[in-house]
């Protein structure tokens, strides 16, 4: 049973998160912080675009350096 569940779970993990779990974790944390800021009077819309602006180049740069 566990083996049967492991295969689809691994498939979904590979599909959504892939080989860069740090980037996925960073984005999930950015969503959580956006939710936290939204409870205050400060605007929070800017956080996710900023997270993409920081995390995408960081992830691309790390992979490029590893494969160079």
């Amino acid at each position, binding site marked *: 049973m566990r083996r049967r569940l492991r295969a689809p779970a691994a498939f979904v993990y590979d599909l959504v998160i892939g080989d860069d779990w740090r980037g996925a974790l960073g984005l*999930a944390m950015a*969503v959580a912080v*956006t939710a936290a800021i939204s409870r205050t009077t400060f605007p*929070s819309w800017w956080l*996710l675009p900023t997270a993409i602006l920081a995390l*995408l*180049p960081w992830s*691309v740069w790390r992979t490029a350096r590893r494969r160079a």
Partner: protein
Amino acid sequence: MVAALGPALTAIPTNALRLVIGTVLLVFGVQWLRKAVLRAGGVTALHDEEAIFQRKLAAAQRAASHRRGTVPDWYGFTLAFQGVLLEGTEVAFIVLTFGSNQHAIPLASAAAGAAILVVGAAGFAVRAPLARVPENALKFLVGVMLTGFGAFWAAEGAGARWPGSDAALLVLLPGIALLGLLLVAGLRRQKGSRDRRTAAASPAQQAS
């Protein structure tokens, strides 16, 4: 799937739905965009679609066909089912989010039905192998769309209010595309200077 799941999904609070689907689309989209950027920048190899098509075709032709229940070719059935389920689920999620956002699930279901007809007709009209489609450019575009819509819905689901409401997408999507293109340009420049250094070093090594 859209018609069946749509009414059930209206029972879930819209913001929770936007938060979950938006976050999944965002993570998935950034991963796609990252891979497309790495391929376009020359860090990873572009897929040779013609070779992949021939390899998969040969494997499918070699596979023994056997009957299971009412299905005459089980291998063909599972192959088609896997592809349709995966891509169909992606489409269903996107259509449901659009539909629930606008409180118009029946309209979204009708649009999904129309899309099946259009895509089916287009697929029948253009039956050439996928090698003729610029795969990485398509993946780049899909990555930009998934990232942009994912960020938009995840932020809205988390309680953020975008300046200009839906019009923010008109800035968000080109902004993400521009970021991707700048990264591709940076990687190509880096690869070009590395290749020049390697080419310059090779004659020197041969001379010594």
